[in-house]
């Protein structure tokens, strides 16, 4: 038997059954217990994954000596701090400074508007105007 559903699970979740969702593990339990082909498929996928880990994991086994030297020389060969790397302007200022400044600015605008309104239209002037128009 071909077991397309099992193939799908293996492709989706890999061959490590511990990583499978419990629902899938439960669904496949009986199949893997009773069907030798299904067990072979799982074993094949496990072997493939093990080879993958072995093969791909070995590419970073050794750092070439010449490259290592080049990397260790970076601090001597590249300026620090780099002009482009320092975060200019807004980004370099801590958030609480910005919040404080914004709050002070808003308070100043409100105060200014309230002050102007008080000077141009004091309470007694409003009362007299309304009286003149017969609102009282």
């Amino acid at each position: 038997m071909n077991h397309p559903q099992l193939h799908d699970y293996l492709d989706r979740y890999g061959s490590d059954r511990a990583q499978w969702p419990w629902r899938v593990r439960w669904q496949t339990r009986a199949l893997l217990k009773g069907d030798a082909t299904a067990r072979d498929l799982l074993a094949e996928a496990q072997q493939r994954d093990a080879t993958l880990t072995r093969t791909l994991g070995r590419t970073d086994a050794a750092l070439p000596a010449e490259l290592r030297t080049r990397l260790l020389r970076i601090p001597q060969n590249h300026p620090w701090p780099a002009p482009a790397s320092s975060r200019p302007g807004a980004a370099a200022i801590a958030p609480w400074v910005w919040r404080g400044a914004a709050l002070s600015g808003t308070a100043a605008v409100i105060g200014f508007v309230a002050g102007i309104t008080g000077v141009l239209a004091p309470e007694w002037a409003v009362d007299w105007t309304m009286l003149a128009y017969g609102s009282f």
Partner: protein
Amino acid sequence: MTDASDDVLLAATARGDSRAFAVLVERHAARVHGFAQSVLADRAEAEDVTQEVFVKLWQHADAWQAERAKLSTWLFRVTRNAALNYRQRVRPREQAWTEHTPDPATEALETGIERDEDAQRLQAAIATLPEQQRSAMHLVYGQGLRQKEAAQAMSLSLKAFEAVLFRARRRLREDLTLASGEAREDIEP
């Protein structure tokens, strides 16, 4: 200092401490180089990209925000972007990376590394995968990253990454089945 965490070393690097930077190089350079090589399939180009990544690390250490990501995840993301940019810059007319002929040094290295037949077949099949799928396989199987970290390293959502990995596994399985079928036909009279 060699026992210090990446975050501590980065903070020291941000203050211009070249010894802290050297420890970071010793700790991460081989993995960065290995991953760059997997994206570019060229040892010399991978070395250039590795250098580019560590220059960035040296120059941008002051902007590092420890709570946002692990250093290794950030390094893989920068490495992949740098490798893709490098490929675009250096071999813009190349249609697929598989058309690029690896230099003799790479070939010698690969021949030295891969002795058994299964691994060779697998490596050949991986080489035909699209770059995104190949990188996903390298991050999960080669670097041992969890899917969430690998997704971050590739700037993908977890769902999107799972889909990429699913397609890669399925294609590898199909290719290997096909290859083993052909091999069997060659042997049988």
